[in-house]
């Protein structure tokens, strides 16, 4: 995984330049006049689960945590790694020992120094069964020594492979080589937490009146299911370069209400409801924005004995995949800048270009002809029509896509489908227990590397609900973990997927927002959408 390593180094080099006091004020280009009111207000769909770095499990919570706390490394606008609390790191040749050097001016919001021990405490806390963190699995995939054993209750949290050599040096020992470990430290589970505050207040330490944090912001107000407010942290080491004074997140469940409130000027950012992007980008060309996201959208075949017999035949799976006119779905149904998908890994992934299968370049008519042929070969046609059910979770957009797909199959191949719409938790339960024939699936990368997607189709993956099992894929993915050129191996995996078609890739996500044109420096090029309020600014209108 040489490529990834180079990315780190170049990221580090870039960051040293950024950290140097060349610019007087953060990232503001010359000639931009800043607005007097530096408040950024945005909409979130649901109340966040927590702002405890080791507990938080949802995107909106992680967004707040990234502002309140700072990990060893952070990301810049492009998604490159830049120093956070750590000024840099060294990895041993075999990529199993990482040594991070911490900056000496990092402070908690109560003035206490941020030390390596705060990370040791936090990481041990994340794996401690007593914490019962829903994100403990993340610690497992970091391969830190003994993480899995501690989570299972077979070892003491103190045996975790992380130690503070001194106040400013943190040493991490991994049980398996992991070239992208430093990148994983940008995730909230690996952020530090203040032991003295947690010991004093217990689970309530994250309330505004108790919380102590080390990021660019502190939590000042939280009204459950209504709003949460964070304001500049004066103790933050890079406070001089922070421009946004106050960040307000408003919980608005209904996306159309959110859009109305955005248009009325109450919000600086909100999501665009499915299908409304063309109209909005015409009316508000400056504000309606769309950019690629590191997420895929697909349908998975149930390949177990519980699934239909027809799906055991790769020709049937391929025929169905070919007959889906992705252009219609992307351009007419969603219409928000999403891209047609022919590979499982989104094309926006770093350091890897997923190889397009041969059929992707053909016209839809040619694909349809191929599909008919394949289905006939498999023995399905007017005399023996194929029929199955497909399930998706409740959402207007999912429904529209499912209806479009079933119509395409009916018209082109004479396939009968029964659509099943399920509430989220019911859907997860049914799909997880293989009580389906064809089911919707989607995944957003946990880190910007192809394995976060391709691992899902390996035999032991917990998310492989279709139970696709291919020894070649498993071997290739294991090999890729330590290989110098993982890209070639990933390409082979994608080729197998295109041949076997255990899933039907439909489209790759786009972030589709209404963003007030006075918001500066939104990281549209960060495909993981890890944004930091400290890098934003508001421009005078």
């Amino acid at each position, binding site marked *: 995984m040489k490529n990834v390593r180079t990315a780190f180094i170049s990221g580090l080099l870039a960051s040293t330049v950024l950290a140097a006091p060349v610019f007087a004020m953060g990232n503001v280009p010359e000639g931009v006049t800043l607005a007097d009111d530096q408040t950024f207000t945005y909409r979130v769909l649901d109340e966040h689960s927590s702002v405890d770095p080791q507990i938080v499990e949802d995107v909106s919570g992680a967004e707040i945590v990234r502002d309140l706390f700072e990990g060893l490394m952070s990301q810049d606008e492009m998604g490159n790694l830049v120093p956070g609390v750590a000024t840099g790191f060294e990895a041993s040749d075999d990529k199993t020992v990482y040594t991070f050097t911490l900056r000496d001016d990092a402070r908690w919001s109560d003035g206490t120094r941020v030390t390596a021990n705060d990370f040791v405490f936090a990481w041990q806390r994340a794996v401690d069964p007593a914490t019962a963190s829903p994100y403990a699995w993340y610690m497992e995939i970091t391969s830190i020594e003994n993480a899995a054993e501690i989570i299972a209750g077979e070892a003491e949290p103190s045996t975790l492979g992380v130690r503070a050599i001194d106040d400013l040096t943190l040493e991490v020992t991994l049980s398996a080589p992991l070239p992208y470990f430093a990148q994983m430290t940008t995730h909230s589970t690996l952020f530090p937490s203040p032991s003295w505050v947690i010991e004093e207040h217990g689970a309530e330490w994250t309330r505004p009146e108790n919380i102590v944090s080390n990021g660019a912001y502190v939590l000042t107000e939280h009204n459950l299911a209504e709003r949460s407010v964070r304001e500049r942290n004066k103790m933050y080491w890079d406070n001089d370069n922070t421009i946004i004074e106050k960040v307000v997140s408003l919980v608005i469940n209904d996306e159309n209400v959110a859009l109305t409130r955005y248009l009325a000027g109450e919000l600086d950012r909100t999501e665009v409801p499915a299908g409304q992007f063309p109209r909005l980008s015409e009316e508000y060309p400056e504000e309606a924005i769309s950019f690629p996201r590191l997420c895929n959208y697909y349908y998975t075949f149930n390949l177990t004995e519980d699934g239909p017999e027809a799906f055991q035949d790769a020709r049937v799976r391929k025929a169905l995949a070919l007959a889906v006119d992705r252009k219609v779905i992307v351009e007419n149904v969603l219409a928000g800048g999403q891209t047609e998908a022919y590979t499982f890994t989104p094309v926006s992934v770093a350091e890897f270009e997923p190889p397009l299968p041969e059929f992707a370049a053909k016209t839809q008519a040619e694909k349809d002809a191929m599909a008919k042929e394949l289905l006939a070969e498999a023995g399905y046609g007017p005399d023996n029509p194929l029929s199955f059910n497909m399930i998706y979770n409740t959402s207007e957009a999912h429904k529209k896509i499912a209806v479009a797909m079933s119509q395409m199959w009916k018209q082109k191949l004479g396939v009968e489908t029964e659509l099943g719409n399920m509430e989220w938790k019911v859907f997860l*339960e049914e799909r997880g227990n293989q009580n389906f024939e064809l089911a919707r699936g989607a995944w957003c990368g946990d880190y910007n590397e192809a394995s976060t997607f391709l691992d899902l189709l390996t035999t032991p993956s917990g998310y492989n609900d279709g139970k696709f099992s291919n020894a070649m894929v498993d071997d290739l993915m294991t090999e890729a973990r330590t290989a110098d050129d993982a890209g070639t191996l990933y390409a082979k995996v994608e080729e197998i997927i295109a041949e076997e078609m255990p899933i039907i890739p439909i489209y790759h996500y786009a972030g589709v927002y209404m963003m007030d044109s006075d918001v500066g420096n939104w990281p549209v090029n960060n495909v993981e959408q890890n944004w930091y309020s400290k890098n934003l600014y508001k421009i005078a209108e």
Partner: protein
Amino acid sequence: MFAYSLRRILGSVPTILLLIIASFFLMQVAPGGPFTSERPLPPAVLANLEARYGLDQPLWKQLWDYLTNIVFHFDFGPSFKFKDRDVNDIIASGLPISLTYGLLSFLAATTVGVSLGIAAALKHNSWIDYTAVSLGIAAQALPNFIMGPILILTFTLYLGWLPGGGWNGGQWQYLIMPVIALSTSYMGSIARITRSSMLEVLNSNYIRTARAKGLPDGLVIWRHALKPTLLPVISYLGPVFVYVLTGSVFVDLYFSTGGLGQSYVNSALSRDYSVLLGVTILYGVLTVAVNLLTDLAYAWFDPKIRY
């Protein structure tokens, strides 16, 4: 009356208990649990979580622990989703908001509704009557999920007068639209009930007697007609009161008020068992209490009723 109230309160204990038990088991029947997630948790993590919240215990034990905690400690347990909150906190933060909207809507619906109804009845078959009746019917035909969007589009988007939602510490600008949305249809019903009831009362013999003996009109209405007119209204107000408190689910969601309705719906969707159960019990107790109050109010309005 005291003995009656005591009997009613004691009698409601089994009702509430039954509500708790039924809700408890119904919740378990719904597929999925609080920790079902898109990324299935490793078994060890799941076991840790279940142990922490007592979900690894047999159901009867969970129910018993739950009940004893409520009775002896008034503790409704921790939220499964919001790790730094327990159910008491969630209710404490949402209930005042819901109560504020509920009470204001109730007051608005009652005062405007009753006044409209009385005005219509007194000026029977005049333009006032027709206007009031049309207003009443129109209001009744506008449930809150229609009023919400109309209000937001008008006052937030087109006119830009009012914020489109939120609570913001309960500032008055944030209260207006939710209260209108919540009270309009009840106001319509109350106006119509009051009007027909008043018309009936005005045609009754004792009103004719009162008028015949020369009492001024205002006094007839104030002293003799009002109380009996309000009797059917009262029996309607009991349920309305509960509806505006619990029926604010839509308003809470649509106007993102942070009220209890939001926690109620979201806890059901995320299988946050303890929050769902806690709010259900709260709504149950409120319903029972308001029904009792309504029954007691009858005695004041109608001298024929004695407990």
